[in-house]
């Protein structure tokens, strides 16, 4: 596999996971950008453990994910049922603080970051294949879990909170507990993406985990459609891929293109391109075909 294709596929998987990490808490109407901070923390954790203590990849992946979940849980105790804007600002603050600490502490490599993160397998091609398989296995696993959640009682409770919080409370939905659960889960996904990112890129710097990343993931989620998990899944490969085939002069303007797309889609189709009725329509079409067979 060529190197550009490998990076395209691998980074697409990361973007899908990160967009989903924003999708999960947005089920109850919270924009939890904290997951970008979780990604940064876990990727630095992964890099330091792998370089300094020669921790194996699998151990780092599990502990990095748990670290994300733990931080997410601790923060969610305070903001599990907070208004969306408070959650947004807590996320931004954590990103800013993480970045400041990374840039100013020598052990984290300062503004330059950390290089030469070890390979998981000795040969480069084996290493790439393994990482791709793991990345997409994680995408499948997370997608499966989100799908199970969306079709469960909890998923319906989350939709109720999104539409009318007061009504959901009067039906007996525990907004705080559900918010805490979703934030913790999202942070775990953020942490997991961070570990994968560190091993895929093999070098990390604080500049990777900024508002820029939030902008890209948010565009993928809102352009694709924030009401189903399919939106981010389909938007991530396209949105991440198309600037790569643009002429070089236009490539550096990708953020402007994302911004314009985000605004245009939200104005024209506020729920994004793939909505629940779209998914239902496709499902019914597929089931009709199946019956014919």
């Amino acid at each position: 596999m060529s190197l550009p294709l490998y990076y395209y596929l691998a980074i697409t998987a990361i973007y899908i996971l990160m967009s989903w990490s924003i999708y999960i808490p947005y089920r109850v109407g919270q924009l939890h950008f904290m997951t970008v901070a979780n990604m940064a923390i876990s990727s630095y954790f992964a890099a330091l453990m792998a370089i300094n203590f020669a921790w194996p990849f699998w151990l780092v992946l599990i502990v990095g994910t748990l670290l994300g979940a733990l931080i997410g849980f601790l923060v969610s105790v305070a903001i599990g049922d907070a208004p969306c804007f408070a959650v947004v600002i807590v996320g931004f603050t954590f990103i800013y603080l993480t970045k400041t600490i990374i840039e100013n502490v020598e052990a984290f490599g300062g503004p330059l970051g950390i290089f030469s993160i070890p390979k998981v397998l000795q040969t480069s091609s084996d290493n790439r294949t393994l990482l791709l398989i793991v990345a997409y296995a994680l995408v499948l696993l997370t997608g499966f879990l989100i799908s199970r959640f969306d079709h469960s009682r909890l998923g319906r409770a989350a939709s109720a909170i999104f539409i009318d919080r007061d009504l959901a409370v009067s039906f007996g939905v525990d907004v705080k507990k559900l918010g805490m659960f979703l934030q913790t889960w999202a942070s775990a996904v953020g942490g997991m993406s961070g570990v994968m990112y560190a091993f895929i890129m093999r070098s990390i710097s604080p500049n990777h985990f900024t508002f820029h990343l939030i902008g890209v993931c948010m565009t993928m989620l809102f352009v694709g459609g924030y009401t189903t998990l399919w939106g981010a899944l389909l938007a991530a490969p396209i949105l991440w891929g198309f600037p790569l085939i643009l002429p070089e002069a236009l490539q550096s303007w990708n953020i402007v293109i994302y911004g314009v797309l985000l605004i245009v889609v939200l104005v024209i189709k506020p729920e994004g391109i793939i909505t629940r009725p779209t998914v239902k329509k496709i499902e019914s079409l597929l089931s009709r075909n199946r019956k014919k067979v």
Partner: protein
Amino acid sequence: MEILIAQIFNGLSIGSIYVLLVTGFNLLLLVAMIIHFSFPVVVVFSMYISWFVMTLTGSVALGVAGGIASAVVVNVITAPMFQHIMRERGSVDINATMVISMGMGMIITDILSHTFNQGFPIAFPDALTGNDQGALISVGLVSISRGQVLTLIVGIIFVAFLFWLLYKTRAGRAFRAIAEDPNGAKLVGIPLLKTGFQSYALTGILGGVTAVLMAVLLGSASAGLGDQLGHKVLAVSIIAGLGNLTGGLIIGLLLGILEAIIQGYLAGSWSNAIAFIVMLVVILAKPKGVFGSKL
């Protein structure tokens, strides 16, 4: 003690900038009913336009006029976009306006970091900042610049004007009526969209004046400044209670003073981090605001 006094004065002038930004943000929130997260990004854009006109023409007056005009133009041009969303308020929630505003911020910040001054930070001429004339008042370690005094005075006058407009005039009463109860305001014949549109123009002027004051006080700007200010303004607004104008005034000034005092005793990036930690602790402890939300 002298450092403390100097830093408190410094903090008051930075704080008055925050107050202006938070007031503009809150006005849009209350009257136009949008979360304009990127309002400070528009202000930084105006700083860049102001700098561009000054470098092109060499005239400070034209630069100031250009800066104010650009903020009004950006606000008014983007108003129909937000109003389109607000017309479908039944199906679209206020979060959508924040996401659109963030998209706008992404575009503006990226344009600023690509085009003006080849993406490098810009520095304003001494004719505007008055830095070449030295301090206005200098007693021992305490030195107060012209920029600080000007920012504080204009900040106070402008905020006083806004409060007068909101609480003593007919137009202000319409603004507050919409903020209090949009449906009730509609029933008594207040045109929601038109009044909302006026609030965009008003906050445009406010943003433009803030941009000029920031240029005078800071003397420079970079593309990333807008994001950082957007973050602080939203934080101040949440800590004060979303839409709470008086609360925004108090918390804005307090943040300015806190930052300045920390800066007096600590190195650059850490001082900002401490201010953020303080804000974080307050938000975690009181996510619905200290003075109560008016939303």
